[in-house]
């Protein structure tokens, strides 16, 4: 039975390899000392490219080449388990790295450092049409009957779970009970008109005219603006800190460690900031961020910023409570949202 499952995973991985624009996935084993394989989720591709260019200018990174593969976070993580070569992985949610720990590919101590395994961060924002015609100010406006919402589907996209958690958290972290939070999220999903499978698809759908509000990541909103798209966004009073983990694999190229150190350094985080991510350390230059609403104060502080560890215990705990395929509260709410229509 295990063998058969391996066959299926291998088939999926082969497909992922073929699809990913990594320019040939034939090499296995770390024979080539000068090449780092990066496997990541789609969003930080531009930032990682910029960091790589900067790193190549330093003594550590001189002459190191990169082989990259970007795609949906969960798919990428499963592909690595199935044998896709990776020296460094960068995923949307911690559970995708945990999968590699369980498979013996990443050391269990990967999140022991001061950064707790996190390499990039952002927040959930409410993206609206240019000029905010529906006058959206905060979460409560989203459940008005005249508001139509687009969000990636938390049931099929791990990354979209940040959005659902932010919506839930703005009730629960402000003194609301689980029942009240459930009530709010139910009303919110009743207003959802499109549930694409990834953040990128949701952004495309929104920019093509669907809905009034897009539950988005701040960095995606900034990047879209940098690319000339027309949209505004509102930072709600309470939102969640999106924390994307990164790790090096057990048998990684020795260059992977200095690479990770550089990613976590001020220079590395500055490159993330330029692409719209919030730096994970203090002291990073954050002025002149193109595409931000105010380029010189690009990352305004929300009144209350929730984190997974403080407000939701841990990824594994919240995954079970909210997103279990059958019993998860939010999965159930989404399923029920279709019945009431």
């Amino acid at each position, binding site marked *: *039975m295990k063998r*058969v*499952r391996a*066959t*299926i*995973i291998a*088939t999926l991985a082969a497909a992922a390899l073929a699809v990913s624009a990594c320019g040939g996935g034939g090499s296995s084993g770390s024979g080539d000392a000068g090449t780092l394989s990066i496997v990541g989720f789609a969003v930080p591709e531009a930032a990682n490219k910029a960091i790589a260019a900067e790193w190549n200018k330093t003594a550590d990174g001189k002459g190191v080449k990169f082989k990259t593969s970007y795609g949906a976070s*969960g798919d990428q993580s*499963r592909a690595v388990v199935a044998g896709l070569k990776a020296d460094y992985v960068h995923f949307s949610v911690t559970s995708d790295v945990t*999968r590699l720990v369980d498979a013996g590919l990443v050391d269990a101590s990967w999140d022991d450092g001061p950064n707790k395994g996190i390499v990039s961060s952002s927040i959930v924002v409410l993206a609206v049409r240019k000029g905010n015609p529906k006058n959206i100010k905060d979460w409560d406006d989203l459940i008005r009957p005249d508001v139509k919402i687009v969000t990636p*589907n938390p*049931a*099929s*996209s*791990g990354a979209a779970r940040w959005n659902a958690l932010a919506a839930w958290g703005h009730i629960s972290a402000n003194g609301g009970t689980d029942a009240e939070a459930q009530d709010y999220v139910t009303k919110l999903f009743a207003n*959802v*008109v*499109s*549930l*694409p*499978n990834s953040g990128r*698809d949701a952004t*495309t*759908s929104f920019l*093509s*005219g*669907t809905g009034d509000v897009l539950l988005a990541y701040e960095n995606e909103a900034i990047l879209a603006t940098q690319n000339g798209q027309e949209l505004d966004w509102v930072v709600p009073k309470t939102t969640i800190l999106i924390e994307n983990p990164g790790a090096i694999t057990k048998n990684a190229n020795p260059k992977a460690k200095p690479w990770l150190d550089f990613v976590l350094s001020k220079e590395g985080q500055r490159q993330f900031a330029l692409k719209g991510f919030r730096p994970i350390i203090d002291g990073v230059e954050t002025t002149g961020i193109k595409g931000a609403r105010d380029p010189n104060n690009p990352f305004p502080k929300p009144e209350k910023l929730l984190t997974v560890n403080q407000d939701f215990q841990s990824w594994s705990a919240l995954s079970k409570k909210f*997103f*279990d*395929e*059958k019993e998860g509260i939010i999965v159930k709410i*989404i*399923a029920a*949202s*279709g*019945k009431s*229509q």
Partner: protein
Amino acid sequence: MTSAVLAPDRPALARRSDRGGGRPLTRGAALGLGMAMLWFSLLVLIPLAAVVVTAADGGWSHFWDSVTSPQTAAAIRLTVGTAILVTLVNIVMGTLIAWVLVRDRFFGQRALEVLIDIPFALPTIVAGLVLLSLYGPASPIGVDIANTRIAVFLAFLFVTLPFVVRTVQPVLAELDREAEEAAASLGASRFTIFRRIILPSLTPAIAAGAALSFARGVSEYGSLVLLSGNLPMRTEVTSVRILGSIENDNLEGAAAVAVVLLVISFAVIVILDVIQRRMVRRG
């Protein structure tokens, strides 16, 4: 006769049963058969068997739970129902388009001939994007069907358009017109000629095209990514449900739904074949 070109399996089957299958294979034929079987096994049989085994991995109750959850059942109903509807439309419209391409001469015919294959060539996500910009909220013609079941229907129609056209067209082109002329000279109406002379010859090709069209519709994913909105119980198709199960590391559940789709597709293809044989015999 001409149907042999398109549906070679059927006459070949008949021929083989005439022969009784007792004759030993020549060396070349044995090599060919061996290669065909190996190829087919590697690409189709083994992966499909793996899916079935994985589905069985979770046990019967898990299998049953996976495919009967209201959301999944709704997705299967929507996918299969829409695919059947689309196939019926394709049978009529595909045959009509093939007819126009073969029997009529008009300006732009060559262009149409080439354009028919576009839905084959276009990546489906691009198809979705094109349909969204034309029939979405920013529609220049004021038709907004994005995120409704009509969008699913439309996307299926788009990606399955070429199948019936391309299977019927060559058969129609090879069709012997003398039989039609003879029937006309004997006083048969045009409708009777179509029903009694032309349709029976086309039926195997139409059935083959319909089967392809149905199977393609059931498996469609890419063009719906941006267009259907994936709303549970309303516009969510089965492939999206399967993706959701995979995202939750529930491979058994995903495989269970896949097996149901396989069985349904197989059943539809068999039914089409039976209908086709009946019609040919009656004709």
